[in-house]
């Protein structure tokens, strides 16, 4: 079971939350903590493909997201309800992630002692 759960709930670009949250995931992994990521609420927008952060002189989090497997982070979940509420489907997303129901999401939170919520 993974030790560290990081929840991403803020949209990208407008604030630095997305970048600072993924920084924490990578540092956690570097510290030998098995990390699981969960995208919910507006955080699901972080997963959209075709983001061009350079249009507003930002680096975005895409490169870091693509590096996740190198850090052995392969447990990436997205809240099914958050996607559907925003008219999004998994095929619009840039990353391999597993879409989960409310019951599985609650179980995910319950099974982690270390939860970081951004």
């Amino acid at each position, binding site marked *: 079971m993974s030790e*560290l759960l990081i929840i991403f709930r803020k949209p990208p670009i407008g604030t630095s*939350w997305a970048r600072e949250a993924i920084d924490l995931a990578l540092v956690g992994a570097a*510290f030998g*903590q098995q990390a699981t990521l969960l995208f919910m609420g507006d955080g699901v927008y972080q997963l959209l493909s075709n983001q061009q952060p350079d249009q507003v002189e930002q680096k975005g989090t895409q490169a870091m997201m693509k590096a996740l497997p190198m850090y052995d982070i392969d447990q990436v979940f997205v809240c099914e309800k958050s996607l559907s509420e925003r008219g999004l489907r998994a095929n619009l997303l840039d990353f391999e992630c597993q879409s989960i129901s409310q019951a599985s999401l609650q179980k995910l939170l319950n099974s982690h002692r*270390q939860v970081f*919520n951004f």
Partner: protein
Amino acid sequence: MKSCNEMNYSIAIYGGPYSDQASLSALHFARALLKREHRIQRVFFYHDGVYNSSALVTPPQDEINVPTQWQTLASEHGIELVVCIAAAVRRGLLDEKEAKRYSKSSYNLAEGYTLSGLGQLIDASINCDKLITFGA
């Protein structure tokens, strides 16, 4: 009132002083922890929370000085005040060493605060009984 089991806590703060309640809430919470005889190992400042560590914070005389309050509490109770170095340097909060490294003419990290990596936040979440976050 004494609690039955003394625990080791750490606190994370993501909000800047004066723009956000986070740091003040955390101060109240920290004092309540100590009153219930818990130990606070570390306060970690991340995101805009790093602004709490500026030595140049100058509120009007009738408002409390948040960085000073943390300094006092920390020195009285042996609490580490750790500021995320990456988040801080980006936002212009430097200690003497970082100022030298980046050839800046001055530095502004308040006394009692230490710049360190995010690993210190991970460490707190692993090794403390509880990590309580005050977001923004």
